[in-house]
């Protein structure tokens, strides 16, 4: 396990030089303040990056609000993280008019890794939500087309390779380090 629990990865920026980003974040905070979680919500020191952490049950409402109010239609990708007790889903969007990349993230408890799928409002999320379910075991509830997309067909359903505690129970990583011709039937 890494030392992420005691060191914060958040690098908030000063307001100076990031006026547009702070204006956007403050507007969102004033309008949707009740569903935003303060920890993990900040303007990043890198230009044009805003990270917003929200309550997992309000993901759909928030994405709809962002689409209607801020014209956030360009969906980049979805990346997962393993935080130990929680699993995190980061939805990366890009607001084309304001030229700001917005990351919306939710923390889901590891014991009950479920959240509401947004594929019906953001069709582009279809493949990445399936991918996240395979790799991290984060289940998008209400996904219109749940199926296997990256891992082989014979992969066990309870193994999620990108979780930090996945210890390679079947020796796959060792297998790929063998050299030389193998006896083939």
């Amino acid at each position, binding site marked *: 396990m890494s030392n992420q629990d005691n060191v914060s990865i958040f690098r908030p920026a000063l307001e100076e030089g990031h006026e547009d980003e702070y204006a956007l974040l403050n507007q969102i905070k004033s309008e949707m303040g009740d569903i935003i979680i303060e920890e993990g919500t900040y303007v990043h020191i890198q230009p044009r990056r805003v990270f917003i952490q929200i309550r997992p049950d309000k993901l759909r409402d928030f994405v709809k609000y962002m689409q209607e109010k801020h014209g956030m239609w360009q969906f980049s990708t979805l990346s997962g993280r393993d935080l130990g007790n929680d699993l995190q889903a980061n939805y990366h969007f890009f607001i084309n008019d304001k030229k700001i990349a917005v990351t919306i993230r939710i923390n889901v408890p590891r014991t009950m890794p479920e959240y509401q799928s947004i594929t019906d409002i953001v069709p582009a999320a279809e493949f990445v939500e399936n991918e996240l379910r395979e790799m991290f075991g984060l289940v998008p509830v209400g996904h219109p087309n749940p199926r296997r997309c990256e*891992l*082989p*067909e*014979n*992969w066990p359903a309870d193994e999620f*390779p990108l979780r930090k505690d996945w210890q*390679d129970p079947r020796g*796959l*990583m060792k*297998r*790929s*380090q*063998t*050299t*030389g*011709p*193998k006896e*083939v039937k």
Partner: protein
Amino acid sequence: MGFLQKLINKARVKSPYVFHFNSGSCNGCDIEILAALMPRLDLERFGVKLVGSPRHADIMLITGPVTEQIRPRLQRIYEQMAEPKFVVAVGSCACSGGVFRGGYNVLGGVDQAIPVTAYIPGCPPKPTAITFGAYKLLEVLSKAFGVAEKKEKEEVPFDITAAQSEGVAET
């Protein structure tokens, strides 16, 4: 060896059909294989022809470290090829797994799945290397089939500087 068999063997060496299979490669080797077939190097002058079906092919060029999901397909396609069949592993990944050694979803080399005749290393091998590898394989095959051309003169070791000064080899 009968006359007909001799003719078939000669034809086999003079016009090998190759089939290209991607077993999870990064494309680098694939575009270099295509570049070897393109006007500058023109592998077709050795009679090599790229075909789309394994059933027509004599030689299968394989790139990539063989992912878990592609392995059954690779083995099935290998079985579909008609005898005699030869497999050439193109690129470091196909030879040994390359940079992907230690990954959970790769086998690490084509020889972990099917028998391999020749290896062309490089990441990716240059088109010249692929041409050279293909030519070497044809030489070995022609010896194995007993259709190698009789040596008329002593083989002179290739001198690159002399060739360059005569303008034969590319600089």
